[in-house]
Structures are given as structure tokens and as C-alpha cells.
């Protein structure tokens, strides 16, 4: 093995397939998208080069910025929800009774397809027959909110299933990370008289800081490019009240036949994600690495 790995030709040979696929399926399309963004193009037929018109239109497009604002709100809520997941994981990893069952319960939403989750929550939110409004009506509220039809509520009504959907995923990550902390460390702390709170706050969380950083990036980037539930549950409506960047892009490409502008949005979305990721990495960089 060592011999093979020192041979540059062999290394190239091994890397090539993965590299080729990555280039062909990810990087080249990204460059192409940026290029299409410079075109007036309806998705078929000829393209007309219009320079940066699409991008300047994007900067001035208030609908785009409102959808971007919604995306950032989602990112904010997702990150806040991480705190909750972390707490749940700390409790679960702390050898409580039934932790195993609870962990599985939290994981179940992750096993459902987005479409199924969307259908489920659309039934829950149904203005007249949904269980949510039926419950509200049975406790005496005569005009319960019309969750997905009310422009002030629609966005937040969708946030709930989105956050619920990913709970299992993050809990699983935190749980695994917490389980990796050597028992001896915890025991040593306990002998020194540390409370459970101290152990969690001063030992466990600093030790899994790297994992937390990764989940923040995942949550933020995942939120910024989020699409599925919104597309199915409201399609960005009513009138853009729950539009996010990705659904706005989709609308322009596949309903508005404006692939040029949609490409510009897509490329811009990528740039935003890259910048945000970089900022998070910078902001959360720790000077000294804490180790076991």
C-alpha cells in the first residue's frame, strides 16, 4: 500500500474518477449557472448576452430581498433551535431512563420524506378540519388563525415543521459526539465535586465545540437554500409571504420561464452561502484547541 501511495501516477489514477464526477456534476454547472446569469434566456432557444443586467436587477428586486430576509429568518430560528437540541442531547447522553427510546422517537421525523411531512402538516394546519384548529375551536376560540393563508403567519407556520424535521438529525450528531467523551473525564470531574451543570457546561460542551461549529454551518447553509416544504405547503404564497430564495429562484425558472434571471439568483445564493460560511468559520474560530 505504501508503495502504491507514493507513486504519483497511481494517486492520480485513484483521484481521477471522483474528481471528474465532482467537476462534471458540481463545479462546471456552477460556472455555467453564473454564465447563464449573464444571458436573457427563457430556457430554450437562443441566449442573448445582456451583461450584468440580471445581477443589477437582482440587487434592486425588493421581492428577492424579502425572500432573502425570510431565508435569513429561517437560518436564525434554525440556529436557535440548535440550543434546544443540544440540551436534549446532553440529557439523553446522561444515562437517563428511556434515553434509548426517546432518541429513536426524536429520529423518526428524519426518516419521513419531505413530501409526507408537508402533507401531514398541511392536514394539521387545515383552516377548518385540521386538528390544530379543531382543538382551538373546541376550547372556545371561534375564529382560529388560518395558518397557511395568513401572510403574517404562513412563514412561521412553515418554520415549525422545518425545525421539527431536522431535530432528529442534530440530536443524533450531538448525541454521538457526547458519547465520545471519555467516561474517565466525567468521573474525574465528579470526584472533584463538579455539579451536573458544571460538567455539561464546562466539560462536555467545550469538548464538542468543533461538532457544534459544524452543525451551525449546516443549519445556516441548509436554511439559506431551503426549498421542499415551502414549495409543497404554500408555494411561496400567499403572494410571496413565505417565499425563500430557493423557491423564488424556482418560480422564475420553471413558472416564469426566465432561466437567465433564475441563474443569476442561483449564483447569488451560492455566493451568499459561501460568504456566510466563511463568516461563521471566522467568528467561531477558537484560538486554542481543547482536547481530551
Amino acid at each position, binding site marked *: 500500500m505504501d508503495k502504491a501511495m507514493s507513486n504519483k501516477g497511481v494517486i492520480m489514477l485513484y483521484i481521477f474518477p471522483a474528481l471528474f464526477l465532482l467537476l462534471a456534476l458540481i463545479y462546471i454547472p456552477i460556472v455555467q449557472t453564473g454564465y447563464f446569469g449573464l444571458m436573457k434566456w427563457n430556457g*430554450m432557444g437562443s441566449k442573448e448576452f445582456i451583461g450584468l443586467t440580471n445581477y443589477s436587477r437582482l440587487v434592486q428586486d425588493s421581492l428577492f430581498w424579502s425572500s432573502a430576509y425570510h431565508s435569513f429568518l429561517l437560518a436564525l430560528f434554525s440556529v436557535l433551535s440548535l440550543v434546544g437540541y443540544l440540551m436534549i442531547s446532553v440529557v439523553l447522553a446522561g444515562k437517563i431512563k428511556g434515553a434509548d427510546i426517546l432518541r429513536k422517537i426524536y429520529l423518526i421525523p428524519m426518516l419521513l420524506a419531505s413530501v409526507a411531512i408537508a402533507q401531514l402538516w398541511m392536514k394539521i394546519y387545515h383552516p377548518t378540519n385540521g386538528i390544530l384548529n379543531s382543538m382551538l375551536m373546541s376550547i372556545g376560540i371561534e375564529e382560529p388563525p388560518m395558518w397557511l393563508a395568513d401572510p403574517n403567519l404562513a412563514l412561521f407556520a412553515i418554520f415549525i415543521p422545518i425545525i421539527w424535521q431536522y431535530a432528529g438529525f442534530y440530536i443524533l450528531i450531538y448525541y454521538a459526539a457526547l458519547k465520545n467523551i471519555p467516561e474517565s473525564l466525567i468521573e474525574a470531574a465528579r470526584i472533584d465535586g463538579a455539579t451536573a451543570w458544571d460538567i455539561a457546561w464546562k466539560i462536555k460542551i467545550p469538548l464538542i465545540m468543533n461538532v457544534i461549529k459544524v452543525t451551525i454551518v449546516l443549519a445556516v447553509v441548509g436554511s439559506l437554500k431551503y426549498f421542499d416544504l415551502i414549495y409543497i405547503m404554500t408555494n411561496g404564497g400567499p403572494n410571496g409571504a413565505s417565499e425563500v430564495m430557493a423557491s423564488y429562484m424556482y418560480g422564475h425558472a420553471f413558472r416564469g420561464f426566465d432561466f437567465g434571471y433564475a441563474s443569476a439568483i442561483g449564483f447569488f445564493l451560492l455566493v451568499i452561502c459561501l460568504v456566510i460560511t466563511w463568516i461563521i468559520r471566522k467568528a467561531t474560530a477558537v484560538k486554542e484547541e481543547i482536547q481530551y
Partner: protein
Amino acid sequence: MGKKAHTLLVAMLAVFMVVMAGCSSSNEATGDSGSNGEKTIKFMHLWPTGSAKQHNLITSDIIAEFEEENPGIKVETEVLENEQYKNKIKVLSSSNDLPDVGVTWAAGYLQPFVEGELFAPLDEVLNDGLQDSFVAGTTEAYAINDQTYGLPLELNIAPVYYNKAIFEEYGLEVPETYEEFQEIVKTLTDNGVAPIALGNKDRWTGSLWYMYFADRFGGPEVLTSAINREGTFEDPALVSAAEEIQKLVDNNAFNRGFNGLSNDEGKSEFMNGKAAMYMMGTWELPNYTTNEDVPQEFRDSIGFFKFPTVEGGKGDVDSFVGGPGVGLFVAENSDVQEESKAFVKFFVEKWGERAVTEAGVIPATKVDTASVDLPDMYIDILNELNNASNLTLFADVQMSATVAETHLNLIQSLFGKEVTPEDFAKQHEDALSRE
């Protein structure tokens, strides 16, 4: 160790080859000849066995008949559900990879495909004796620059369906004028019944209501000429139409939360007898006549009426929102274009013979009501169709895709009262003049 690594490499290469093969096969030209000189027509349609069982059956029958009459030609189908179909067609168009024959919509929807030279003109097929069998005005919706690019299969109008049982319970009569209609709405809301079922998440559903008001206030031309830029969207009639929509909303004429419900969800309010009225295209007719999955009692209790006239308005009661539904296209770059054209012709003729009796679809070709046995509701609708003074094509189909998006979003805001009627008109005008 080295041996193991090389085995791994071989395995990886194998996977790689498979992936590459998968990528490349889709690039093959459509309609390739089979091994024994057989020709294959690729046909993509949107009638899956589940949601459009009868359509699907008729289609397969017609294909089987065609293959029998034309030995050496095979028709290969790919079936997708409506929304997926629309998306896939767009993806295939951008890679110039359309099936030989497929389903399309008229007017504004058709425009980019024609401009991109993706569809073949079908005039020679029409002039080959087929033109006369179409109802006047249907193929015109598929014509761009005097050439026809699609052969329509369906013709629809949108009446208001109503539940006779509910009407009887509250002593209501079919309205002739809009005042009577408003009375009905009032009586029903007073009694806690939702007057109108609407699922406006899909937006075109609300557009139907708006279009009727536009027609009844300003006559048949006002909306069409605003769209084709002969007129303006700030016409008083178009503003009044928007005002009237908001009055209906204020009077709770529509079921609760309609802006968050899809058409199917809205429809279910009508189908389970919770709402008294529902406006929809005649493609819904089977649900009120022949569809065995719907209880007989419900089917018998459904009638329809024409959208009432507005006092002082220019529109008359026989003017309908509607027009040709889907049609068939032939791809310009098809290798089997001649065969495809023959297939499309064959399909349209057979479809005309069978669609109405078996699938409950009103075809775009003329129906001889005397020779076929049809439920009464069909005969009535066909008579209305024959007496129609005007058919206004669905607004979002008339418009180009970008403007249609603006229109549909504005419709949703109008119903949600997030835009004033004046702004509603103005934003339409801006979007249309930007084109």
C-alpha cells in the same frame, strides 16, 4: 496489499463507467430506429392510470390501434402527473431533447417553444381535411404567426356548479343577476354554510372569478385587449372587477383560509357538501355524472348555472371563460416527424370519437350529440357551448409566462386584501408594458 488496492480501483472504475453510461444514454437522439427497421415514436403525456384512468385507457387503446394499422411503427409512452410533466418538458426543452409527440398548452405558454423552434408547424396536417372537424376558434389558440403548432384535444368552459340540495334547503333559486347572487351568498353565510368553495393556493382558481367579473363589467374584449396591449389594464371595468372580488371576500363568500388551500382541498369542501357553489372548468363534469367513485346521491344533486350579469355591465350571460385545453405537439427535431404527424392526426380523430363518452372530456373536435348517449348535464353544457357568444381564454394562458406569474400572485393578494384594486390594476399595467 497492492493487489487489494487494484481490485478496489477496478471496482471504482466499473462504478464510474456505469455512471458515465447513465449520463450519456439520455443524449441519444429521440426516435431512433429499432434493430429491424422498426420506427419508434416517443410520446409523453400527463394522464397517469391513477388520477386520469379513463384518459389513460383511451390513450393506450388509440396507440394499440395505431400500431396495428401502421406495422413497423411503435409508440413508446412516458407518463407523468400534470405539474411534473410541465417541469420535465421545460428541462427537456433546454437540452433540446423533447419527445417526438407530447402535450402542450395554448397561446402564451406555447410562445417560447415556438420561438425556440422546438415545435413543428402542423398546418399540413390540418389542411389535410382535419381543420373542418375542429370547433371554430380552437386551433386558433395554438397558432402563432399564422402557423399552428398544436392540435387541441379539449375544449372547456367554466360554469358555476351548485349543490341543489343546499339551495333547496334554504329556498334559493339559480341567480339571473348579480344582485340575486349576492342575496344567495348572504342567505348562505347567515346560515353558516360556506357559499363558494375555492382553493386559491393554486391562484388560477381565483383568476377565473376575476375574469368573469371583468367580462360582465367591461364586455368580452376588455381583458383580452389589456393583455395584448390594445387597451389598458387600468380600464375602469377591470378595477371594478377587482373591487367586486374584495366585496365578496368581505362578505365571507369563500370558504375559510382559501388562500392556503390547493384547488383539490378547496374542491373537497364542495364535494363533501360543506360549500354550496364551485366554479371550475368542464373537466370536472365526470365527478358530477359518470364517476363511480363519487356517491350517486351527490352526483344527482349537482347542477350548474352561468355566471350572472352585472347591472350596467357590458358583458352578456352567454360569454364564458374557457377555451381549448391541452393539445398535441410534434417536435421539430424529431427523426420520425412524418410518422409523428400521422400519429397526431390519428390520435385527434380517435380522441374526438371517444373522449366525451368514455372520459367525460369535451373534445375540441365537433361532437354529434344526436348519435352518442350522454348524461343530460353534458348535453346542456354542449348546448351552452354552441350558444356561447364568446370564449375568453384563461388569463394566465393568454399572458407570457413572466406576466402570468405577476398576474397570479396579484390575484392571490387581491383575494387576501393585501393590494387595493387600483394597485392591482396598476401593477398589471406595469408588468404588461415592461414586456
